[in-house]
């Protein structure tokens, strides 16, 4: 059944009531990182042996993983993206960036620079 306007408002209010800006940013960054990781894992390989798109679905001998195994691995990938998203949000919270995200970033270039630093921070933060 489609979501009505009243339900949408309730859902939005309840989400922000429980998780706040922090939760919204974390969910957005989890989805962003998941999309980014899958984009690269589905990139055009330079050699057949480096075909990550195939390696997601079959092992190095070519034996296919079951649908359950593939789904479970994608769930674990998402969980790891969530862990990194939480790390970015922590950086944003500790630096005060989270609060500043309520300002229009196009009128404050410092916000854009801070987002860049927070995002790139995950490369060093969590391996």
């Amino acid at each position, binding site marked *: 059944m489609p979501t009505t306007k009243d339900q949408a408002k309730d859902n939005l209010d309840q989400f922000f009531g429980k*998780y706040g800006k922090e939760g919204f940013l974390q969910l957005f960054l989890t989805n962003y990182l998941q999309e980014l990781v899958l984009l690269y894992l*589905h990139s055009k390989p330079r050699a057949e042996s480096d075909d990550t798109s195939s390696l997601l679905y079959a092992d190095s001998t070519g034996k296919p993983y079951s649908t359950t195994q593939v789904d479970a691995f994608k769930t674990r990938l998402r969980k790891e993206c969530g862990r990194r998203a939480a790390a970015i949000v922590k950086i944003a919270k500790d630096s005060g960036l989270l609060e500043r995200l*309520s300002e229009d970033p196009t009128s404050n270039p410092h916000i854009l620079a801070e987002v860049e630093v927070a995002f790139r921070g995950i490369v060093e933060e969590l391996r």
Partner: protein
Amino acid sequence: MGTSHAIGAPNTKKWKIAVAALRSPTRNANAVVGTTVSAAVPLIPPGYVSVPVAIAAYEGLRFAALVKRDGIDSAAEKTSVRLVEKYVAPSISSSLWTSISDRLPSAYGNSVFGKVAETAFKKTLNTVLTKGVEAMEE
């Protein structure tokens, strides 16, 4: 049958490590995500992640604050969101992204990273609007 690839694989040592992590018989999601991010992020030119992400986060938070304060119809009007009664959540997510996209330099918005931000933003807002607090459990 072919596979559509939006980008080519990086030609770096870091990417070879990411490939090895995925190829490992004991493939570990933490290692795959960590090595993929380490290989990918340094190759993304400055601005291509931060600008779409910052503007989308700002617009998403602004919309939520307006809905809480003034209601959904008023928030939609103030943010130029076109509300479709039959498709409330997707029409808000899609329409709000159009506003975000209009504010992005085209180089960012039309890039593959702009598309990543678009998919992530629409998925996020759509899930929150339809599932509420359960959106975090996805």
